[in-house]
């Protein structure tokens, strides 16, 4: 709370944007004028009283899909990012605290995974395992966690050299306490900042996957998928796909405004 009061205007704007999106996502069924899949008109209708933002490529109400899309997009991205952070941070912290061969082993494995083109890696896994939401989440989380690992390890290394960690070691504390109570709270700002960035990348990544025919199961709406489905219209001067794209951009900018603030806090810790 104290932090909030001291936060700069930009962070507050970001917070409002994110909160707005979350509220829309949670109350989607109450807000949306139509259901996610209902066909309400012709294809790519202009904005009208019937459908406030027009209709999509199947004649579904764009606004409703946008609202439900917020739900799917945010939930999916959130779960995926959480998962990647859980695994990436845990491994990164262990590597930093334990050091030695464990660190070397983990880091080399991560290096190797990172050496493969992400999209192609995902493509291979998804084409083999099928693109159910579960597999989608796990795959992206795994690919993402490599980058989280790197950051978590680097940040933890910085913290690990601090005397208070040595104090804990000298006290005889175990790995869990050191990771959870000594390192994690101090790594938080950097991790939160990265969380924001990763979070945004996840739905862009899903959009890329759906471009290649993988991605979220239709008829579920996700913003990236919506851009993809309607993208053909743009070359004919129909601006329907700009709307979900703008939604993505809006949320990304919002998240990044908060991220910037946290980065600022993170840098403050080192000074």
């Amino acid at each position, binding site marked *: 709370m104290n932090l909030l009061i001291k936060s700069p205007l930009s962070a507050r704007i970001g917070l409002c944007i994110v909160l707005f999106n979350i509220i829309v996502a949670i109350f989607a069924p109450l807000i949306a004028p139509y259901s996610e899949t209902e066909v309400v008109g012709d294809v790519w209708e202009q904005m009208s009283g019937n459908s406030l933002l027009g209709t999509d490529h199947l004649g579904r109400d764009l606004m409703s899909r946008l609202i439900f899309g917020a739900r799917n997009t945010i939930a999916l991205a959130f779960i995926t990012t959480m998962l990647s952070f859980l695994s990436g941070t845990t491994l990164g912290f262990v590597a930093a605290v334990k050091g030695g061969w464990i660190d070397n082993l983990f880091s080399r494995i991560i290096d190797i995974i990172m050496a493969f083109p992400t999209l192609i890696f995902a493509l291979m896994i998804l084409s083999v395992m099928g693109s159910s939401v579960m597999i989608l989440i796990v795959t992206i989380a795994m690919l993402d966690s490599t980058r989280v690992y790197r950051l978590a390890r680097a940040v933890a290394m910085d913290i690990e050299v601090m005397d208070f960690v040595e104090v804990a070691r000298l006290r005889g504390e175990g790995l869990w306490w050191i990771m959870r109570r000594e390192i994690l709270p101090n790594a938080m700002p950097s991790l939160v900042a990265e969380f924001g960035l990763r979070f945004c990348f996840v739905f862009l990544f899903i959009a890329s996957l759906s471009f290649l025919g993988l991605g979220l199961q239709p008829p579920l709406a996700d913003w990236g998928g919506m851009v993809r489905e309607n993208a053909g219209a743009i*070359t004919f001067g129909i601006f329907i796909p700009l709307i979900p794209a703008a939604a993505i951009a809006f949320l990304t900018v919002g998240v990044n405004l908060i991220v910037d603030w946290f980065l600022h806090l993170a840098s403050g810790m080192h000074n």
Partner: protein
Amino acid sequence: MKPVIWLILRRAGFGFLTIIVISLIIFIGVELLPGDVAEAVLGQNATQETVEAFRKALKLELPPHVRYWVWLTDFVQGDFGRSLANGREVSGLIGWRFANTLFLALTTAAIAIPLSVMLGMMAAFYRNTLFDKVISITTLSFISFPEFFIAYILITLFSVQFNIFPSMANINESMTLVAKLHAVLLPALTLTCVVTAHMMRQTRAAIINVLASAYIEMAELKGIRRLRIIMRHAFPNSLSPVINVVALNLAYLIVGVVIVEVVFVYPGLGQLLVDSVSKRDIPVVQASGLIFAGAYISLNMMADILSMLANPRLRQSQTS
């Protein structure tokens, strides 16, 4: 041995080792891909009989470790084998496509790196001003769009509306360099939009980080002009993170541009790899996978080595 050379050799050795491990993983991983080459290649035309015939023709029944050994030794000698799908030399399939991929990556890099480093420096110079914020939000918005969407917008604007650049970048060897550059400008611009934000933000952060150093204050107290401080004092010391982020983005440009290739009909390696994965064309997947991994690793290695050289502490350590 001189320490810095030793460090570089050690780093290079590590890179080499990683590539070897990756070659093994690629081989095993691709071998484990479920689904049958024959079925995938024949697609809807696959019948029991045709599939059997296909398998036999390609000697798929040989044990994997024998094939790995043959593959690796051949690969080292530059023989990547033949495509299972159409029997062409893999090296012939990959060679010119890889050149194309590099061409696009370098064209993009030539635009994106100076642009983002410059923007990053300016944002750091004018930090927390309106200019800084506008650049930050603009670049952020660019990365918030899926890249195919940026591509479509650019095509709509520059090819369909104004007809300045072609919407297709299907370059071929009979074109002149200028014609090629003209053709790849739109895909290069698309990729620039994608990578600039990242590089610019990193540059800005690195420089701002350095600007907090005592030697920057010292330079100010020596009465040095601000621009010179940024260029001479801050930038050289923020090179290491900048080099790293540039390398990361170069690697992305080489290995991650499938979508841009599809949208612009660009004959690069990405499309080949995607097609080969879906058709289970194992030799092509293995070879291009290894080339991608190699590109990624050598770029990272070069970044590390350059960072070492950029740091006088390491560069000069042989004299002390």
